[in-house]
Structures are given as C-alpha cells and as structure tokens.
C-alpha cells in the first residue's frame, strides 16, 4: 500500500468520525413530551395559542418587564408554560412559528434562546448584516 493511500484512508476515517460524533450529538427538534425526559438542551418548534379573534393568548410579562413567560403549543398541540429571561421580542406575537432552545426546570420550560419566523416578507430580522 502506498503512503498516499494510508493518508487518504486516515482522512476519510477522521471525516467519518466527525460526521458520526457530531450527528450523534446533534440535538433534535422534539416535542414537549420528549423534552421532559431529555437530559440535554433541546429545540422545540411550535406556535402560540390564539383565541377566536386571532389574538395571541397566554403571555405574562414579569413585573419589571425584563423577562416573561408564555404558553406554547408544540407540534402535537401539547400546551406548555415557557419562561424566557429576556424582554418580549418585538414581532413575538406576530410570529408564525417559534423555536425555543432550552430545557425543563421542574414543570417550566426555561428557554435560553428564542427564534422567530415572521410572516412579513419585508420584515428583515437583522442583527448582523455582515453576510
């Protein structure tokens, strides 16, 4: 076997190791039921509950308005109270879809990060316009 072949095999082995380890480690989009038993942080995709009039319900800002909790429905329509230690993001109520990243602390899901998907085509969510 030539040296270059050994080299190539080595590279492929490392590449496979990377793929296997990172993909195996990858968190996945789960439901609240699955999130409850998970020991690592997870992503949950869901929507905000609306009443007949189409207004979003179940958002409770804290007294100092610096954090809030809200009710979210996951893909199985299971309800869950979620706490977020940041002020309510603008467009939060208008979002079509919400992705929360975090985990359970007792009965409450504590989100570290919230990602919103907004319906408006011209609504550009820009923090960093670098790319």
């Amino acid at each position, binding site marked *: 076997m030539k040296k270059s072949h050994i080299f190539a095999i080595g590279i492929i082995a490392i590449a496979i190791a990377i793929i296997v380890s990172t993909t195996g480690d990858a968190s996945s989009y789960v439901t609240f039921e699955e999130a409850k038993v998970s020991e690592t942080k997870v992503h949950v995709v869901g929507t905000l509950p609306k009443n007949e009039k189409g207004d979003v319900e179940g958002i409770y800002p804290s007294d100092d*308005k610096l*954090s809030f909790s809200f009710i979210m429905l996951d893909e199985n329509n299971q309800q869950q109270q979620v706490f977020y230690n940041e002020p309510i993001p603008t467009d939060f109520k208008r979002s079509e879809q919400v992705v929360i990243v975090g985990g359970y602390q007792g009965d409450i899901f504590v989100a570290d990060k919230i990602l919103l*998907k907004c319906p408006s085509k011209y609504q550009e969510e820009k923090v960093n316009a*670098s*790319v």
Partner: protein
Amino acid sequence: MIHGFVGGLGHLFVILSFVSALFAAISYFIAAKTDDFTKKEFWLQNGRGFFYFHTFTVIGIVASLFWIIYNHYFEYHYAWSHSSKHLPTHYMISCFWEGQEGSFLLWLFWHSLLGVFVIFTSKKWEAEVMTIFAIVQTFLASMILGIVIPAINFKIGSSPFILLRDALDAPIFKMNPDFVPEDGTGLNPLLQNYWMVIHPPTLFLGFATTLVPFAYVIAGLWKKEFKSWIKPALPWAIFSAAVLGLGIIMGGYWAYETLNFGGYWNWDPVENAVYVPWLILVGAIHMMITFNNSSTALKASIILVITTFILILYSTFLTRSGILGNSSVHSFTDLGMSGQLLIYMLFFLLGAIVLAVVRWKEIPTMGSSVSTYSREFWVFMGATVICMMGFHVLHVTSFPVYNSIATLFGFDLNLAPPAEPIKAYSNIQIWFAMGIAILSGTGQFFWWKKMDKEALKKVITPPIIIALLVSAFIMLVSGISNSEFFRIQYLLLVLFSVYSIVSNTFILIKISKTKYSLSGGAVAHIGVAMMLIGVLASSGYSKVVSLNNTGLLISKEADTSFNNENLLLFINEPRTMAGYEIIYRGDFYETVENGYFVNVNDLESTINPRYKIAINDIIENDIVLFNKSDTIEIAPENTYYQVDYKNESGEVFQLFPRAQINEAMGGLLASPDIRRKLTKDLYTHVSSIPNPDEPSEWGDLKELEVEYGKNFFVNDYVAKIEKIEPLSEVEGVELGDGDVAIKAHIKVMGESKDYTVAPIFLIKDKMVGRIPEEIADLGLKINVLNIFPEKNTFLLGVNTTQKKWIVLKALEKPLINVLWMGTLVLMFGFSIAMYRRYSEFKNQK
C-alpha cells in the same frame, strides 16, 4: 412628492449593468475561444468596453441609491427602512449594507473594481479570467434586477429602487398613493457604530477577492495550462485570505466590544459561513505554495481553490435563502430569491466539477512518493488539518440543509443544530488547533532546509526545551493548572502554541539574516499561534467576577445563575466584588456633538426627546462644556451608567456600560464597557435596569416637623433647611395681593455629595398649594406641608422610593489582547508573503 426620476434612473442602471455584464461575458468568451489574432483582439476590445461600461453602471447604481438616501426620499422603501433624517452621513453609507439588496450591490461594486484591475494585470489570461468575472457579475446583477417576467409571474431579483407603496401593503397608500412618510425608520441604533462603516466592506472585499483565484484556476483548466495559473493566482489568494480574515476578526471584535453577544465568536451559522471558506482558502494557499516549490500538490491546489469559491456561494445561499430560519438569530429572511441563489451556486458548482472531471486525466501528477522528511509532507498534513477543521464546521452548519433535502425526498431527518454551540464546536476544534500549532511549528524547519532524522532532531530540540520551560512557567505563574476550568486539552494547546511561536521565531531569526521577503510564513504562523493562545485563555479561562456575595436574591423570577453571577448596585452605595470595590454613580446621556457624557440630573426634558436643556452649567475638568439653559442634542436611546472601580492596588477607574432602547430588537440591549489591560480585560455590562416606562412608586407620606437651621434626618440622610426664600412669582401660578409663596432650600447630605432641593409652599386665594421636589439619586421627594412661624418650625412631608439601581455583570477575559495582537501579526505575515508572490508573478517572463 414622489421623486420618480432618480429611482427610474437607478433601475435603468441596474438593467444596463445586467445586460452589459452579459455582453461582456459573451465577448470575452468568443475572444477566449478564437485563435485568430485579429478576431481575438476585436472581441477582447469589445469585452473590455462592455466591462468598463458595466463598471460605470454599477457606480451609477451606487450613486442613485446614495442620492435617494442622502436626500431622504422616504418614498423609496430602501431609504425608509434603512435611513432616517438625523442619521449622520457616514452611517448613510452604512445603510447600503444594512439591507440585502445593498449588500449585493456592494459585492457587485468590489467585483467590478477588481475586474478592471485584473484587466490591467492579467496579461495573457484576460479573455478567460474575465469571462468568469463577467458571468459572476451577470448573476449578481440579476439579484437586484427586480423584474417580473409577466407570462409566468416569476420575479427576478429584488431591486433597491422599489417604492414604499409597492413594497408595503399599507392602507394609507390606497387613500393617498403619493403619501411620503415624514421620516425613515432608521438604521438600527445597535449598528450605529464605526464598525458598521468598515466591517462589511472589508468582509465583502474578502468575498469578492476569492473570485480572482477561482477565475484563474478555471481559466487554467479551460486553456489546459494546468500549472501556469498558479503564479498569478497566488498573490490574489493571499490578499483574499488577509482581507477575509481581517473582516472576520473585525466582526468578532465588534461583537465583543459593542454587540455584547457574550464574546467575539458564537459559532452562529452566519459566522461559520465565512469561517469555513477562509480555512479552505488558507489550505489552498499552502498547496499553491507547495506547488510553486516542488511541482507537487497541483490537483489539491485546483480542488481547494474551486472549493473556496463554491463555499462562498454556499454561504451566501445559507445566509440569504432563509434556510437557516430555525437555527440562526441573525440571517437575512428570504426575499423570494432562494431559487435564484441556488441556480447561481449550482451553475458554478456543476460547471467547475464538470470542467475538472473532463480535464482530470490530463492534469500532470508528480509520481514520486512523498517522504516523511520532505516539506511537502508536512505542509500537506497542515493543509489537511485546516480542511478537516473547516469540514467539521461545515457539516454541523449544514444540518438545516440536510433537513430540507430530506424533506424533499419525503422523510423527516429532524436534525437540530447544537443547543450549546460554543461547547459543541470548541470541543472538537481544539484538537485541530493543536494539530495546526504542532505542524506550523515543525513544518517551517523543513521549509528552508533539507531534513533527515538527525538534522530534524538537532533543530527541533532547542525549541521543544524552551517551549516546555515557558509553558511550565506560564502554568505556575497563572495558576491555571489548578483552575476549576482546567482540562488536559488546554495544557496541550498552550504547550504546542508556545512551541510554534518559539520555533517560528528561530526560523525568523535565521531568515532575517538572509532575506526579509521570505519571512511571511514564519511571521504569519507566529500570529496564528498567538491567536490560539488568546482564544484559549480568554474563552477557556473567562471568569465571572461579579459574584453575588450578599446571599440575597436579585429577582425571584430569574434563574439561579442570574442571581449568582450578577450584582445589584444601588446608586452611590459601594459593593465589593472579587478584587474590586465598585460604586454605581449615575446615568449619563451622550451628546451628539463631541460625544460628551452628561449626567441626566443636569438635564431637563423637552417635547422632543432628542433635545434636552441644561439645568445648570455643566463643567468637566474645569472646562465649561455647556452653559445653563443651553439646548443639547443627545441620542435618547442610549443611557450610560457610570460605575467607579477601585482595585486592590488602589487604582481607580470608571466604566460606562450602555443600555439601549431598541424597539427593532425587542426592548433593551446592553453594550459592555471594557477596561483593557495587556494581561486581561475587565468586561462589564448591565444585565438589568429599572424599566424606563414605569414611573417610580412612592411610599407613604411621612410627616416631619423640623426647626429652621437645625439638622434632621430624612431616610437616614442628614438634612438641614438652609434658607427660606420669599417668591414674588411662581411659574404657572398667578400671584395676587395677599397671596404668599416661599421656597425652602433644603440641603441633604448624600453618601458622596450634597443635594439641594427647593420645594415651594404657597397660599393663593386662601388655598394652600405645594410643589414638591425630588432627589432621584436618593429616592426622596420632599414637600413643605405647613409653616409654624410662632415655633419657627416647618412641617415637611417626605416620600421615599426605591433608589436608582442597576444589575451589573463583570467578567475577566485573560490574554484576549494576545488574540488581537496575533491577528495583526498574521496580517503582517500575509502582507509580506503577498508582496513576495506578486513580485514573482510580475517579474515572470
């Protein structure tokens, strides 16, 4: 009034730029295809003409758009959504790249300038290279074309010259189509920072320059000149790596200094999307240099140069197609162009692959087996590690793409990006970083000398010994080996990085005796090793110093780590934290002119929140900045909180962390203030402040009968009525005969300074009126309730409220400045190398 002309002109320029790029591509293509000298010359002239015209139209687009922004034509969507009336001119330039269309425009602009430069320098390569350039420009121009093909209702591109009424479906336009908003929504205040002026153009110049080596490699494959393309492409590749690297680090520095993303790098997909092509480009440069010296690694050079450019397109696709919607906090949303972007990427991906495959057999290979003691082996190893590093990040960042592809084939892959990205990426990247440190330290020895086992042992021993000693010394002095953060990887990375610095310094010293121009590699590698040390120390050993040692919770609602790692500071009350005594001193606004900090207590509000009136003379260091009653323009969205620090050695300094009210980003944003020192930065930011929209709640009124001129206590502060002043007029009240008004001047001695309040007591038409006064810093409101002249006493009413407060977080980031210095060293190394390679190409016959 709608200024339709300039927008129409701009749109015309857009269309012309698209058409001229297309014609330039065709002309250059024909020129490249033909062997007939006169015909070739004719088509070359044509291509040049079209490309020059294209460059002119691109400048025309820029000028038209700037005209719209500069003159505040808010009937245009772009001006309305990215600018506003009080935006300074340098931020008007930044408006260009805040929006997606504008950033395409910036890219077009750089390409066209580079294209003109290439026309002059590419010698015999012009036809082929410029064909690629013009095709790329055609694609990019189509992104801002903004034309709808009527038959199939398909929109090509998104024009920056679209009118607001066409962009927004607001009812006002049904009533009045000529409605023009008074003011724009403005550039996001968070982005109003000098980095916004220089970071995006640098980054885009980095993007744009990757096109040059790519165009050369394609031209080489096309013309079957498999080797000679490397000479002209190499200086460009180095230039590109330098600019792109600088752009990336600028972004990191900006994030660290202002945006407060917690650090300089967060492994966000948007960041990864530029990091990966940069790594591959650096790998490509190593391969190209190897080829220059030994004629090996030709195929690897070809593959990596192509990959770099394709990855730039891929990153554009990732960040602009909306595919990252579920995984990135700051990618652009889809402008309905993901299809167009995909075609752009696939065109070059497939085109390059097909061309490479067709030519593959003809590409010469050096048959000789590579020895372990050859420099080719070591450089090849190094480039492999760099590429693996990129591959890892690329793979994880691409999860959303895998999901989309899986959905396309009808099954659900459901891969989410890592929930804790910093940990997930760093844990793997650190091993590659070690590899880079070892290889860059050792490989350099092979570079300039023939090696065998004995020779290697001889040269490598001194650096190893020195590195071991230095690392041991670092471990001892810093005490990091007993630190709670310690991990074996960290120790190894320090050791290897120090080794790399030492051995490259050895080489540098030897080279400098002969020829400076060869020192680029050694310098650049020293820079990289410094960066690794800086990254490791500042991230791995970053520690929170604002530990809550009071045993009291700051907020019941917040989680434990928030309560443990933050300090609640009441105004003028000292607190201690690890190694510092700190006091929160007050709130400040920054003036628009000169950027002075002015205490909010010295200012009175007007109807317009941008303008405040000075209550008294504002003096700093014996210089009068403002006189009483001056009107001062401030940026109302930013408040700075003065915090005084005193460290153990008695050194005193002040920091002004900022909080910004930013509607676009969901409320309050904190920006840090940093105390910089060579060994470590003290990084502080407010984590919570009182809600500015909520008035303070006053406690119950307490009555207090006090004697004129005698000390008394209000809320534990010593106070005294100093003077009683009869008033002949009171603002807002008409005094008639028999009415009485007095003002009581009361001095209250606060923790750090004295305050004077002057509540007013008046009797008008036999009715009693009272005008209380507040001392915001002390949380006091004082009122004169009654006067008893017979006893010479006054009845005061005192309300108290919570004092002003902030919640502060402070972190220590050790050796972070080594990272920034390392970056500069790396850039310097790149510059030396670029100069050398360009001279080689220029002097080529």
